[in-house]
């Protein structure tokens, strides 16, 4: 049989023509090809809890620039949005993405762990859309995509390093998505050059199969890595020694070539504004994320590796002013986390540190979720924020955008309530038995013995202008009285006329985060050297000893009880704690808590017993909080209602100030007496 001859030249020519044709078709189809949307994730393998990012094969992850593929691989793309879900999109940088963190320990993961719920019964579900690299332009790209997934709220975590205009196009994700970025630049009139040479070329050749071969190969590899992700649950390579954030710093005042002082035009506020405008009806909470504040060399010049002090302080002022002027919801957490919780950079947090941030962000997210985006006909934005203390929900913003009409807030109602909620007898001699602690007054009085102890204390060197707090994460300055070291316009609305003396006397203590406050602190922990901050405490010192040594307070708030081990031991350890403070010469101020984590209110009873037996003042905060909706507690699941609402935080801060003022009113004459005996110092 004769085999027909064939011409190799024709074969090769046909192959070339076919190849060229396919490339032309591919290029012509352009964005509509959307190869990246073809994904095995959420179909054959589970979606990833964070956007794909990785530089090592051992992470079973890779960095790619195809936003379609990135989002298709994310769990947010798993089908439509469930009806019972209040969807929160969390965007930001590598600290949000979760460098060195497992998925459940990231900010979104820990917010989900709090089990928040909205008033309309939906479950709050946060999605981690953070992506490494610091750039608001990068965030804007991601935010735009995130809106396709119908978020009910956007939490935009940011920091100064993301703001410099000169660095916006440095992010590879921005450079590799020139079309999308140019469209945003044009749409919002952003102060960025759409013809900047750093943008990847997107000419005809780059749109062909050959031109996009690397991108297509990356999409394919991402699918293969999906199998390893599904098999191992690993999506990040965790080095054995990731290194530690720099403690000692260079004496460098420079910041991205910007001259002092920092101007609004130096920072990309227009991109931030564009993001909020893009979000439309979806509320956006801007959060200035925590930074590491160094105590090492040149810490008088720089806060950390990233920020000279002058630039960062001015940035905070500018951001707060922008938020106020434009009506943004804004939460400043810059110093909310202690230095020990930062890992390999001045922005990356440990799981515990991230948990603290999650609790604080949840405090802002929770009320918004409770208000419920559904059913609102107007943007449910938190009113212009203070420096760390957002004002009450319901207040209109100057920028206004159909905001809800102002109504007396729950906080204001609570404070306006007549006594005995707000104040009580200033005399402990008629104190009811501990079992009736619920009826004890909110504001206590001091026994003559304690007054004498106070006088002896300041005679022996205690600082009558200092008070300390021994407490857990709900006693950090951000949420407990810290606002009183800020400008008055940021204070919660209340009558401060009778509180001025205390405000002046204790200025500097309100905003100070002492060594006695830590996330998860309990009575036993306060007495244990394991819990002391090694950055400021001596070896073997417990947190309370350390705080007493460092600050020499005359009054010590003891805000403990939410975290406890054994109730009986709690009572015993509480007495030991009190004795330690008394031995120091200071006045211990016990307090009741709003939550009932133990189930039978036995912690508050134990506290009342200690106060009764030792004749100590007891600030009955529970009695005030019980007047608030839900007892002042978040509607939570996993945490059983242990977290205070934002209203309750404000009530507690003002009440704490009232207690302080009441005590100071008793002590001031003795302080003056000691001062005059010392020559008027």
């Amino acid at each position, binding site marked *: 049989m004769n085999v027909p001859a064939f011409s*190799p030249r024709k074969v090769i020519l046909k192959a070339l023509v076919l190849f060229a044709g396919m490339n032309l078709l591919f290029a012509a189809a352009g964005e509509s090809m959307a190869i990246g949307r073809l994904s095995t994730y959420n179909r054959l393998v589970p979606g990833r809890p964070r956007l794909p990012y990785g530089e090592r094969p*051992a992470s079973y992850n890779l960095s790619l620039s195809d936003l379609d593929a990135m989002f298709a691989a994310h769990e947010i793309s798993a089908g439509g949005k469930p009806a019972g879900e209040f969807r929160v999109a969390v965007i930001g940088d590598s600290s949000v993405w979760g460098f060195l963190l497992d998925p459940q320990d990231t900010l979104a993961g820990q917010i989900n762990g709090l089990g928040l719920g909205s008033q309309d019964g939906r479950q709050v579900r946060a999605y981690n859309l953070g992506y490494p690299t610091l750039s608001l332009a990068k965030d804007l790209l991601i935010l735009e995509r995130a809106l396709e997934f119908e978020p009910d709220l956007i939490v935009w975590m940011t920091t100064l390093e993301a703001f410099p205009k000169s660095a916006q196009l440095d992010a590879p994700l921005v450079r590799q998505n020139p079309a999308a970025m140019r469209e945003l630049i044009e749409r919002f009139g952003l102060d960025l050059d759409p013809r900047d040479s750093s943008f990847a070329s997107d000419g005809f050749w780059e749109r062909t199969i050959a031109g996009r071969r690397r991108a297509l190969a990356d999409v394919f590899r991402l699918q293969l*890595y999906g199998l*390893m992700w599904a*098999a191992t649950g690993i999506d990040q390579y965790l080095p054995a020694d990731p290194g530690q954030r720099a403690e000692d710093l260079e004496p460098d005042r420079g910041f991205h070539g910007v001259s002092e002082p920092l101007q609004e035009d130096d920072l990309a506020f227009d991109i931030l504004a564009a993001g909020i405008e893009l979000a439309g009806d979806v509320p956006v909470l801007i959060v200035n994320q925590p930074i590491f504040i160094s105590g090492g060399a040149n810490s008088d010049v720089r806060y950390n590796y990233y920020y000279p002090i002058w630039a960062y302080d001015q940035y905070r002022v500018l951001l707060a002013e922008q938020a106020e002027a434009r009506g943004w919801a804004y939460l400043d957490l810059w110093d909310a986390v202690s230095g020990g919780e930062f890992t390999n950079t001045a922005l990356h947090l440990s799981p515990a540190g991230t948990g603290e941030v999650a609790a604080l962000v949840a405090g802002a997210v929770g009320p918004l979720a409770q208000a419920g985006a559904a059913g609102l006909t107007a943007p449910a934005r938190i009113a212009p924020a203070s420096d760390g203390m957002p004002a009450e929900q319901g207040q209109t913003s100057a920028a206004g955008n159909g905001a809800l009409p102002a109504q007396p807030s729950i906080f204001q109602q609570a404070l306006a309530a007549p006594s005995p909620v707000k104040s009580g007898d200033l005399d402990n001699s008629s104190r009811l038995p501990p079992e009736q602690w619920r009826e004890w007054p909110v504001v206590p009085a001091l026994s003559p013995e304690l007054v004498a102890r106070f006088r002896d204390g300041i005679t022996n060197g205690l600082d009558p202008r200092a008070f300390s707090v021994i407490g857990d994460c709900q006693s950090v300055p951000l949420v407990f009285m810290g606002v009183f070291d800020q400008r008055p316009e940021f204070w919660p609305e209340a009558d401060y006329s009778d509180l001025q003396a205390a405000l002046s006397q204790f200025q500097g203590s309100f905003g100070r985060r002492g060594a006695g406050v830590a996330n998860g602190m309990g009575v036993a922990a306060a007495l244990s050297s394991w819990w002391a901050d090694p950055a400021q405490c001596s070896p073997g010192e417990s947190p309370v000893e350390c705080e007493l040594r460092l600050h020499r307070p005359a009054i010590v708030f003891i805000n403990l009880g939410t975290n406890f081990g054994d109730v009986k031991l709690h009572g015993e350890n509480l007495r030991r704690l009190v004795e330690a403070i008394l031995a120091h010469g200071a006045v211990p101020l016990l307090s009741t808590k709003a939550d009932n984590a133990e189930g039978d209110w036995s912690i508050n009873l134990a506290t009342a017993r200690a106060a009764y037996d030792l004749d100590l003042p007891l600030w009955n905060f529970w009695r005030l909080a019980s007047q608030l909706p839900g007892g002042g507690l978040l509607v939570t699941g996993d945490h059983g209602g242990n977290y205070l609402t934002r209203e309750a935080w404000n009530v507690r801060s003002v009440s704490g100030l009232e207690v302080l003022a009441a005590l100071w009113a008793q002590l001031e004459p003795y302080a003056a007496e000691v001062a005059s005996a010392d020559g008027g110092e």
Partner: protein
Amino acid sequence: MTLPSVLLAAALASLIGALPPGNFRNRFLALSSVLAVYWLQPSSPIRTLELWLPAATLALTAAVWAVTCKGQHPLSRDDSQPDLAAGRSRRSLAGGLLAALLLAGLVILKTPDLAVIASRALRTLANQPAALAETFDIRWLGFSYLAFRLLHILRDAASGRLPAVSLRDFVVYALFPPALAAGPIDRLGRFAGDLNEPHAHPVKRVEALSRLVSGLVKKFVLADSLALISLSPANAAQVDGPWLWLLVYAYAFRIFFDFAGYTDIAIGLGMLLGIRLPENFNRPYLKPNLTAFWNAWHITLAEWFRSYFFNPLTRLLRRRNSPAWLAILAGQVSTMVLIGLWHGVSWNYLLWGAWHRVGLFVHNRWSSVVRVRYDGWQPAGWVKPAFHAAGVLATFHFVLLGWVWFALPEPVQSGLVLGNLLGARP
């Protein structure tokens, strides 16, 4: 081997292949082979080793030629001429020394501890810190294959089976660039025939390009993709259950596509040069038994061991009146162990070789039983294909599980993985 280097090699091969066959082309090929040895030599942390290793390759090649192929009848058995006899004796001694040198080189490079010692010595000579010596410092391009080619020549020369070949042609054979790094292991006689009677014509060029493209797809698309999900020491500890099976399957196909891809590329490049290199793979995973598998996997290596180790050993043992079964058993055991150790002198490769030895033995016994019991049996139409399919599945999975020893350097980990695969989880 990278994609650009393959494409460049293909372009060069096409150009050389287009030259009219004859002395000029063969000289050009020889020169290209010498240059390729230097060009393809990987970098080394030991100073100047990138220069000395290719030089050593050339020196060994030239030395083996001088001992074996120089002259018209290099190993004439005519002892009536004392000079020829004396020369044969000297060349025999030299050949033995060269063989020992090649074997020593193999052992040193394949044994981690010895490789480190050698690295230390070389570092000392180069005035570099010996303490930094590591196993893979001495990256001698294609030494394993070169050594086997030269050993086969020394052996054939000693047996008087070697054709007379010029140094030029010998260099092309020993250092043939497409096969230098990863085989196949060709025979001098066959190769020299192709070299001097090239078969290149347009039809073969198309076939060559097809093999090349096939090799590129197997290596750079399939193998490199499967590498992402293949069994490795790292992921073996991270996965269990059904996912572990996926990793093992991926490894089995990855190693096949990787090796077969290299072979296709080598054969394709060879065809462009007018040389038809021997096949190294013949659908090994579709063979119904282990013996057939070893006749279809790395064919040239298996044939080499069969020709230059197994057959001589069994003949030797038979001459010493060993029972036939013992001679064959000893031959098979040692052959499979050596094949394992050829990949690396370590316990995991030894165990891999032993695994296959056991499998071959079982197959051998099974075949004997079946042959006797079912002699003359004429089964129904579907039975034979069913048996064949069952055989293919069983063989494939036996080989698949054997790859666990090959992939994981620690035998303990391999044992755990095998246990995990078979349901015994810790």
